[in-house]
């Protein structure tokens, strides 16, 4: 392309400098530096890659052209959730995490990267207030990993293998957790009743070999577990640890799991100030009490506050670094590596902006608008709510009575520019409503769905309540999920 090859990203391609540097090393050419790479392993041809765009304007045109093929949730009316959520991200959050100083730093030390330590310590602290727990980690990859690690911690602490899965779990999350812990733990799903944990069934299965009871609240269907306190008491009596997977978005109004008996609270922070990013922006938290038994089993970094040589000044550093794989290799707890620190900073900024009143207002909204949506959709003949649980942000409806399939609804409404929800059963749709889904948006969904139901009315056979309930109970184990069929396989394993 250009001869000799130069590039704005490669300053020392400038010919004179390159030669001067070669001279300083005493090498005749760059090839000398590769003396240890055997000839037989050398690639004898150029890599077969597409022709590049060295001029920035051409690159920009190319990539923008590709991205312009996308139609986002700003172009479509979206009721999609199922693990990635559409929440409003305040501009200040983006401003902070796009600062070069944060975006391009890495594993800095407490001095020249004091800002990173403080920002992440604050993230831990803000999350701790929201969760009412004293210890929160520097983010791990995502909520899947957080819960997997939380369960593994329970296994290591108790020395037991059985885990009772009390709630409905996202199939992909279940898949991840199952493969991650299967050497150490055996998962047993206890079917839910009416959307939430079956206390009696769990009580019956508890025993001295149970490491943990695993709740998800809100569950995969958005159901809030209401019997957490009661079941936690039972679990503790049996010597088991209560591990909760959650989304912290509701704890401005809802009682946090720690105040209902949970020992290890885990989850995802995508809802707290991160864009949807096609599912590509997740971070996981693990929260425990200030108890070395638990803390020493955490693999992640924990930033702590410390005194300095200046009275009254606070500094920061790593707590109990010797736990980690950095220090101990395979003798550490799992491992620690590059995970999701910047997303943690984002979540911290988000919580600082929202404050207690913002989180209370948002929590209330995430109860109220979905409830309204439930009312509107359930008013459509043949459409029923799939369970009677309390829901935050998400809920499921069954459209069988309207002569429709969930896939059919999705297909039809997409033609109107609406993503009506996620198909989680043949006739069951998971509908997500957030602060970005207005009353008018909900009304539009209801009107479109009602139109479909009417259209389908004449040509279908009625569906009994029995089939509806059957499908509801089968939600998790027989999930017809477009992207995560591993569930069946894993759960049957």
């Amino acid at each position: 392309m250009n001869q000799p090859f130069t590039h704005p990203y490669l300053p020392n391609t400038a010919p004179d400098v390159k030669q001067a540097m070669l001279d300083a090393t005493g090498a005749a050419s760059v090839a000398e530096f590769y003396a240890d790479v055997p000839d037989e392993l050398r690639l004898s041809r150029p890599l077969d890659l597409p022709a590049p765009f060295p001029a920035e304007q051409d690159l920009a045109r190319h990539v923008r052209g590709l991205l312009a093929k996308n139609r986002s949730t700003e172009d479509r009316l979206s009721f999609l959730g199922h693990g990635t959520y559409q929440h409003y991200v305040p501009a200040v959050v983006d401003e902070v995490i796009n600062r070069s100083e944060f975006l391009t730093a890495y594993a800095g030390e407490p001095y020249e990267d004091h800002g990173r330590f403080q920002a992440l310590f604050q993230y831990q602290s803000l999350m701790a207030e929201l969760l009412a727990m004293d210890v929160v980690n520097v983010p791990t990859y995502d909520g899947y990993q957080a819960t997997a690690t939380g369960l593994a911690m329970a296994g290591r602490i108790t020395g037991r293998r059985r885990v009772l899965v009390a709630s409905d779990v996202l199939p992909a999350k279940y898949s991840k957790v199952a493969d991650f812990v299967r050497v150490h733990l055996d998962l047993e799903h206890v079917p839910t009743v009416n959307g939430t944990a079956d206390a009696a069934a769990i009580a019956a299965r508890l025993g001295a070999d149970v490491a943990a009871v695993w709740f998800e609240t809100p569950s995969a269907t958005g159901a809030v577990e209401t019997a957490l306190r009661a079941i936690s008491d039972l679990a503790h009596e049996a010597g088991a640890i209560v591990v909760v997977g959650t989304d912290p978005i509701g704890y401005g109004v809802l009682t946090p799991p720690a105040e209902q008996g949970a020992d290890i609270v885990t989850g995802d922070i995508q809802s707290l100030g991160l864009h949807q990013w096609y599912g590509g922006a997740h971070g996981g938290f693990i929260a425990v009490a200030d108890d070395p038994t638990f803390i020493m089993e955490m693999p992640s970094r924990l930033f702590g506050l410390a005194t300095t040589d200046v009275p009254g000044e606070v500094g920061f550093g790593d707590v109990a670094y010797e736990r980690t794989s950095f220090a101990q290799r395979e003798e550490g707890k799992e491992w620690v590596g590059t995970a999701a620190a910047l997303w943690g900073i984002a979540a911290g900024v988000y919580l600082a902006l929202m404050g207690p009143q913002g989180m209370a207002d948002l929590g209330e909204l995430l109860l109220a608008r979905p409830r309204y949506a439930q009312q509107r959709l359930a008013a459509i003949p043949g459409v029923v709510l799939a369970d009677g649980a309390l829901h935050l942000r998400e809920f499921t409806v069954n459209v069988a009575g309207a002569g429709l399939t969930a896939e059919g609804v999705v297909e039809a409404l997409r033609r109107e520019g609406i993503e009506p929800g996620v198909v989680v059963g043949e006739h069951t749709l998971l509908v997500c409503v957030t602060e970005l889904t207005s009353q008018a948006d909900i009304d539009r969904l209801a009107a479109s769905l009602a139109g479909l139901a009417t259209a389908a009315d004449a040509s279908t056979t009625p569906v009994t309540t029995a089939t509806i309930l059957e499908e509801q109970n089968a939600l998790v184990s027989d999930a017809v999920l477009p992207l995560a069929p591993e569930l069946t396989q894993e759960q049957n394993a």
Partner: protein
Amino acid sequence: WDEPVIFELSTPGERGVFVTPIEPGVRDAVGDVVAALPAGLRRATPPALPELGQMRVLKHYLRLSQENLGADLNVDIGQGTCTMKYSPKINDQLIGTPQLTAMHPLQDPADAQGVLEIVWSLERMLAEISGMDQVSLHTQGGSAAIWANIAMIRAYHEANGEGEQRREVITTIFSHPSNAAAAKAAGYEVITIFPDAEGYPDLAALKAALSPRTAAIMVTNPEDTGIYNPAIKQWVDAAHEVGALAAYDQANANGILGITRARDAGFDVCHFNLHKTFSTPHACGGPGAGANAVSAALAPFLPGPRVVREVAADGAVRFDLRDTDARSIGSVAPFHGVIPNIVRAYSWIMALGAEGLLAAAEIAVLNNNYLLAKVLEIPGASAPYAAGRRRIEQVRYSWQELFEDTGISSEEIGIRMTDFGMHYWTSHHPYVVPQPFTLEPTESYSKAEIDEYVAVLAEVAREARETPEVVRTAPHNQTVHHTHHDDLDDPERWAITWRAYQRKYFGAGTPASAAEPAETAA
């Protein structure tokens, strides 16, 4: 700045951002949903989050940002093994569009053709770069990718009925510790090979360790010493001879792009760190992004879902999502990976092309060998192992001689470096090299910048000899002073959150007014 912890800035009643109001029509229909919560489910006391006006939150975090030293601001070659290269600003700008940020992963694939094409194309480009058949971009970082490597290896052996038999994984001491740690987490026993007298990975030791119990070798190459293992193919062949798989940690691939490929050495599986070799920013420690590349034999075990490219009879191209089959290790993370970084890495490769990637590798190696020559001129610095040989893209150096002469440790030198606006990483697991420091200049820094870095190193080394107290009492010029890190290993004194700090140092609920611990620590 002497910026307080954010809780200290709180004023009751201040607001940072409002939530949109609940519409009257909704409120009328649903009533007071909070009051209607079941007993015990309504939070009794609001979370004690701070209350600040919007500008004060912004100011707080902007000040914290100025107390941080990003790669954009310093000559970031002191963070060896991390490949701190330039993350082009155009890539950050390109990803900022709602056409990416506001995409939901379960939207109609017809509405996601752009992002799916980029994922698919990057997979294909990385397949070419590694020589492998299939690539997955699901993981969020290098260690997560290592986990995916071992999870696939485990599934492979299980599928072949050898799951019970193969219980060992072999790695080298200069491979990243996550190889050992992830193998352990997957249930394997870990065997670690130390270098031979020359500093090269010890092939004989490997052969002695290999057996039918071996599930895999998991090695980095070039290792964190910058030494390329010239017998790498023999390592792989030896592993294959006992039926083990060979996994290649390509975190250090930056010097060999277009020079040599994983598959050509026989590896079955490898991973790249997009945040190292492919320029995505390091983001204070993530999100990064991992890429797992595998041979055809291992392809069925890749995590899902997979992006596929379909060509219709009329030639129309369409990208779609496909579930994996039962042999897959399943889901390793939500959805499709760290999309912002996938688009950045794609853009970086497309800015350079084949010729540019090769040039990047060659310049990275030139920079490193130039730096090596310069560092070795500093009295007290040395480059252990492989004496007189060239290195690839980084070098693990040692201040052992300086330490013996002066008592100044590498860690103290690192802290003093910060006073010159330079970053220097003091964490070098494992501490096999005494008084280690690892420098990796990548292709991004000019000769003048490398010279400046070496000049500061030399100056601090001079100080260590002539005015050691200056080095020992550093930092002298930072926003925070010498910090008492021994607090952090004592469960009675560590404070992992503000609420724990308040409770332990001041008694629960008492506001902070000094940093001395209360007599009655909980």
